[in-house]
């Protein structure tokens, strides 16, 4: 009996975790499966397998346009936020300056503010200033909430950078600009890329802030929200599934290659 309880005790956490992973994956699998549904109008009941939704993606009205808009907004906001955030991250680690605590607080607060408040605030500002809502206001909003996440991500990378490498550059008579472009920036690149991917993901999936500031401009999540009342076309599932697969492949490949590199380094060391 005690052996049995010990066995259960040892493997309970494996069992629990397996079930937890299944639970986390349920709606994902559902969404992917229903991207293959021969659904015609509303994609609720399973009617049979088809590839049509994947091959004729743009048949559903507005899906492709919304998807394109989301990509455009995501790329623009990511570019802006990554540049602004990386600059701040370097300053935070490398330099002393007055109002340091205030700056940190200003970077922290957007992450700690509910999205609905950020969205309503921006919308109130645009309303007061008489700015027409559209693609521009969405990009401005997305850039704002991405900056802090970029700072957090890149900062860790700057902090782990060995200053001796840059010193070596200077010792070899490189100008400050050359040191930055040929030593600092390449070394920061993994952090910057991670930050850019995170920004893009946050922007691409944002609904709440977008809804307050998009006006007639339709992003992919906004399309889904509007369609939810009358039935989501299966093509929306196709886009979500495709994005999911791309993201997962990205992450897994990067993890496997990191693991392989760590192993190689361990063998060398």
């Amino acid at each position, binding site marked *: 009996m005690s052996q049995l309880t010990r066995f259960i005790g040892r493997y309970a956490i494996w069992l629990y*975790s397996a079930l937890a992973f299944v639970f986390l994956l349920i709606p*994902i699998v559902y969404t992917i499966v229903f991207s293959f549904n021969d659904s015609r109008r509303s994609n609720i009941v399973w009617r049979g397998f088809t590839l049509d939704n994947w091959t004729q993606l743009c048949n559903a009205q507005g899906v492709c346009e919304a998807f394109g808009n989301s990509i455009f907004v995501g790329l623009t906001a990511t570019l802006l936020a990554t540049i602004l955030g990386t600059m701040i991250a370097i300053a935070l680690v490398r330099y002393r300056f007055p109002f340091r605590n205030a700056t940190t607080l200003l970077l922290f607060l957007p992450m700690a503010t509910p999205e609905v408040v*950020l969205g309503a605030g921006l919308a109130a500002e645009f309303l007061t200033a008489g700015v027409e809502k559209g693609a521009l206001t969405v990009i401005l909003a997305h850039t704002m909430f991405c900056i802090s996440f970029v700072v957090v991500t890149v*900062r860790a990378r700057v902090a782990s950078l060995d200053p001796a490498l840059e010193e070596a550059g200077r010792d070899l008579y490189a100008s400050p600009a050359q040191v930055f472009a040929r030593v600092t920036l390449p070394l920061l690149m993994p952090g910057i890329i991670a930050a850019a991917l995170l920004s893009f993901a946050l922007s691409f999936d944002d609904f709440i802030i977008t809804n307050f500031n998009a006006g007639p401009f339709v992003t992919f999540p906004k399309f889904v929200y509007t369609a939810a009342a009358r039935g989501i076309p299966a093509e929306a599932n196709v886009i979500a599934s495709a994005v999911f697969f791309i993201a997962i492949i990205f992450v897994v490949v990067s993890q496997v290659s990191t693991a392989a590199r760590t192993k190689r380094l361990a063998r060398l060391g």
Partner: protein
Amino acid sequence: MAFGAFGGTATAVAEPAIRKRSKVALILLLPGILYLGLFFLAPLFSLVLTSFQQPAEFGDIGEYETAFKWENYTAVISTYGEHIIRSFVFAATATVFALLFSFPLAYFIGVTLRRFPLVQALALTLVIAPFFISFLLRTLAWKQLLSDESPFVSFLNTMQLLPEGEHVTGTAFSVIFGLTYNFIPFMTLPIYTSLEKLDLRYVEAGGDLYASPASTFFRVTVPLAAPGIISGMLLTFIPAAGDYINASRDFLGSTSTAMIGNVIEANFLVLQNYPTAAALSLVLMAAILIFVSVYVKKSGTDDLI
């Protein structure tokens, strides 16, 4: 530290010794800080202004003039007090459920899988996998999976576990369920980050000193994981309290489950009742700031991000 749990690699941060004071710092900081001033601080300020406005005397619906109408706040609290309370109760319940769900999972990934770094990394990917599929679509997926025609609800009906005429969707249960599901990764990741660094010798020491497994757990493991637990709770509670997708009628909620986010959205985007929406947003923000400031005090400003 904790909000950085999403920034990918949470490496040990060694601060370099040299920190210069220079004009370069200003050039690096200024654009980003100005941006946040313009699109984070200024919007909060416009919310404050808007929240005191009153309807323009001869204006249309949606036209307001600057005023100092304190009554907007008392009106908002008396009209929507129920929604405010519901939001916090739902968010707090979802936070507790997410914690109960996440702790064993985070322990499994951070401690049990420690010897298999690649498996550990893949398990973490599974935890954040829900983030890669559209937030709205995964919530709609649950709506279908919990609908009256779903196998789950048919099962409940045949077992007579569900009172006749009752539904699963559109109830407080389904909204809290959705909130819990959607924010679980925000809870699991920071706890994982804490447990991953947990030195197992402390746990062994607890056993050596004749502590029962339960008291070792509550007096050694949990305190050592506290930073992750606290930031996980904040990261779950904040977005859950302001969320209006899960509670929306087209998703997992109904009119009787409307949360503060739904009221803000309706007042701002549908009714064009901007002062009410603004006042409600600031009430929500103030309530959240109370929790956050406790966290800030504990962690100190330099470790915030």
